[in-house]
């Protein structure tokens, strides 16, 4: 993630430690993937209670853009910044493969450089990515356009409700997603479909969309 951001934006992101209680001024806060605390209690559950998450919640409230990828998404649902929960994959195993993602809503900075309905390639790699929300919540996020990405063309790898792969918060400045766009941002990755997400999130709009 650090390498991807550095390559796309031209400068390295500042790192925050889990015990920090304040964040530096930033336009985008990213909670990357990676088995925080070993996922020993529930994926993201312990990280959601890290001191730095108070600062993340404050930043979200201030309108700063927050992106959680994979374990970051789990942390965001565990901390209540995003609705719903990520359960064990329906197949009960870790799954690492390429899936198809459909852009469900491009009226948002994160997805602004994609076409609505566009289908992109994206890798997934997780054990607990099965998105669940109660019927009322699901109806609300569907109705409010909070679904950012859906698994497309029958590629739902984990049993997520409504093929949901990523969601926004109600205000639209927090995005959580299970797939890893950072692993498809340069030709050596065999594709750059993930790059526009970061360009959009950083308002690097002058960069020509791929």
């Amino acid at each position: 993630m650090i390498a991807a951001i550095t390559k796309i934006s031209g400068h390295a992101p500042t790192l925050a430690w889990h015990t920090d209680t304040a964040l530096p001024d930033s336009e985008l806060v990213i909670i990357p993937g990676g088995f925080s605390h070993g996922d020993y209690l529930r994926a993201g559950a312990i990280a959601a209670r890290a001191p730095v998450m108070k600062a993340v919640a404050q930043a979200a409230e201030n309108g700063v853009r927050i992106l959680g990828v994979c374990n970051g998404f789990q942390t965001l649902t565990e901390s209540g910044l995003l609705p719903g929960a990520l359960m064990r994959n329906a197949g009960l195993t870790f799954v690492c493969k390429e899936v198809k993602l459909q852009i469900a809503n491009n009226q948002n900075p994160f997805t602004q450089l994609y076409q609505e309905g566009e289908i992109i390639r994206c890798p997934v790699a997780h054990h607990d990515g099965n998105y669940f929300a109660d019927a009322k919540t699901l109806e609300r996020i569907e109705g409010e356009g909070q679904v950012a990405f859906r698994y497309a063309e029958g590629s739902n790898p984990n049993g997520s409700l409504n093929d949901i792969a990523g969601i926004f918060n109600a205000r639209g400045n927090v995005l959580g997603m299970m797939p890893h766009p950072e692993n498809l941002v340069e030709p050596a990755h065999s594709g750059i479909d993930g790059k526009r997400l970061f360009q959009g999130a950083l308002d690097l709009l002058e960069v020509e969309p791929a």
Partner: protein
Amino acid sequence: MTVNNTAPITPELIASHGINDEEYQRILELTEREPSFTELGIWSAMWNEHCSYKSSKKWLKTLPTDGPRVVYGPGENAGVVDIGDDDVVVFKMESHNHPSFIEPYQGAATGVGGILRDVFTMGARPIAAMNALRFGEPDHPKTRHLVSGVVSGVGGYGNSFGVPTVGGEVNFHPRYNGNILVNAFAAGLAKRDAIYVSKAEGVGLPVVYLGAKTGRDGVGGATMASAEFDDSIEEKRPTVQVGDPFTEKCLLEACLELMASGAVIAIQDMGAAGLTCSAVEMGARGDLGIRLNLDDVPVREENMTAYEMMLSESQERMLMVLRPEKEEQAKQIFTKWGLDFAVVGVTTDDLRFSIHHQGEEVANLPIKKLGDEAPEYDRPWIEPGTHSPQEPHLFAPPHDYNAALIKLLGSPDLSSRRWVWEQYDTWIQGNSLQLPGGDAGVVRVEGHDTKALAFSSDVTPRYVEADPYQGGKQAVAECYRNLIATGAEPLAATDNLNFGNPEKPEIMGQLVAAVRGIGEACEALSMPIVSGNVSLYNETNGEAILPTPTIGGVGLIEDHARMARIDTADTGDVVFLIGTEATHLANSLYQREILFEESGPAPEVDLLMERARGDFVLAAIRSEYASACHDISDGGLAIALAEMCMASGEGMRCEIEVTYPHSALFGEDQARYLVAVDEQWADMFAANCEGSGVSFAKIGTVGGDRLIINDLIDISVEDMTTTHESWFPAFMGETALAAAAE
């Protein structure tokens, strides 16, 4: 087990430590008195097969270990090889066979953890992992359980730690029914001048314990791994360690940060025989004594005895000798990462290994003798028998070539391993260029514009069983070919020698002949062995596994814009066979799957031919002639063509001159490749083959959606793919599970 240190040393106690009479006499001489209970445990830990290599050392010494790029060969935690620009690749392969059979998830997980630790102990950040797995026959009642547990264990540890698993092997054979093999490989990157070793320097320096706390898990693990299995195996469950990948990830970061701070003089991970092996290693290498105070060892269980602490194999632990002036800074780094940090001892000048516990000295042994005086056996061995060559006409042709090809593509040993590798994170770190399913995994060198490393793990155990010498050569040759097929220059290899009971002369004969074959191949193909591991006593109730010397090879790609892949053949490309018509069907998968027999000689490996053809193919790839490349191995030419078709989603139409169609299509002769060449370069490529004296045949063109070979084979790529992809999920009951999840 709570045995007092004053427990009487009875013959039964000695035998239960795997020490024979002769060895005990030697222990008495070296100890200069009767050993205490703790001392007996220490001797046993240092002198068991797993740690001392006492049966194999004589033969391992014959392997080529040197080369212009070798920085550190065998003897350190892992081998170190120069890849230019002051960068080095650090790698090793190690077995975790017995634990994985007893407790598949934790056994496999801690196997991965152990090998990762070997790599980062030397100061390298792990960038790639592989796993070579051998299971019993698919229908054996334990096999599914073992496959499921081992695969999730490998993934559970590697994925969480954050290293991409980019390659490996999975095979099935009844001879592994009672003793599976789990061989874990890891590679890391470091700077040449920032490599750390275990040799301690300086008297009176703090010996520091770092990482996770010590528990009773794994007590006696290395001794267990040095004995045959019998029906009491379930009782050995407590000897399996439990892994904690998150702690390991923190340990990695803390160690690298500590090394960068300049505080580290020597470092050794606590692997087999834990605190004992690591402390003895550090002291003996540096000609120093070590004095440990076990009261300072962080423990997570109460009332642990000195014996248990010295032999615990709790994971995620390190021992270091630090610069005293940096001790405080070191402690801060470890506290930051939430890890234990304790000064548990001091280096001394008396060459004694002195252990104190609860105000009492519980062991005092000559530290150099513990390692250096370990027995070295020249065990009796008999030269393995040989088979006379068997001509193709001795093997029945198939009634239906299409059906034979489909049967092979959907057979346990040739079917797709997607079910396995999709449980491994193959993309983490963002540098993976070639994933499992091709010839070798390829990972970009971070921070370098063009460089990448290729990794492959290979051995064909049925060949080694038939002819250990040829089989040993073949393991290296196939690894070499897999690296070449991606456009990598093979640099070096690690060997993981899995055999049965070395006290049986015929097993010892297998080891001796296989090592001879491996050595000759490594010499001829310029792939020195820079690290490795020996796993003996792989027997259950007296039946040995197939001899399985796994070779893990590493190759260098100078410019990854000019590598080759299996899946990039394009319509119109001309397909070349590098090599000649195959004639060898003995011990082929055709013989096993179609004729239901496994017999006869292994294929001959002509090392000069391997080298000449390998050099040629590498040059062709680097000159960008090859639009796709694949080595020909298990299943022969027809399988290799089918694999290229399935990977690229393209058909092929082939016309092949054949004498015996079944051996031409399914024979497993060595030193052969398939190369797809853009039509415009085809004539030049053929001319280059001729000019280089390399045997070749233009055998077909890419296009359409069917694989057609003469009037023998005509199958759609889709049908082949369906068969190829279905066996593993069906075997593991995936279809039933998916239906249940609907």
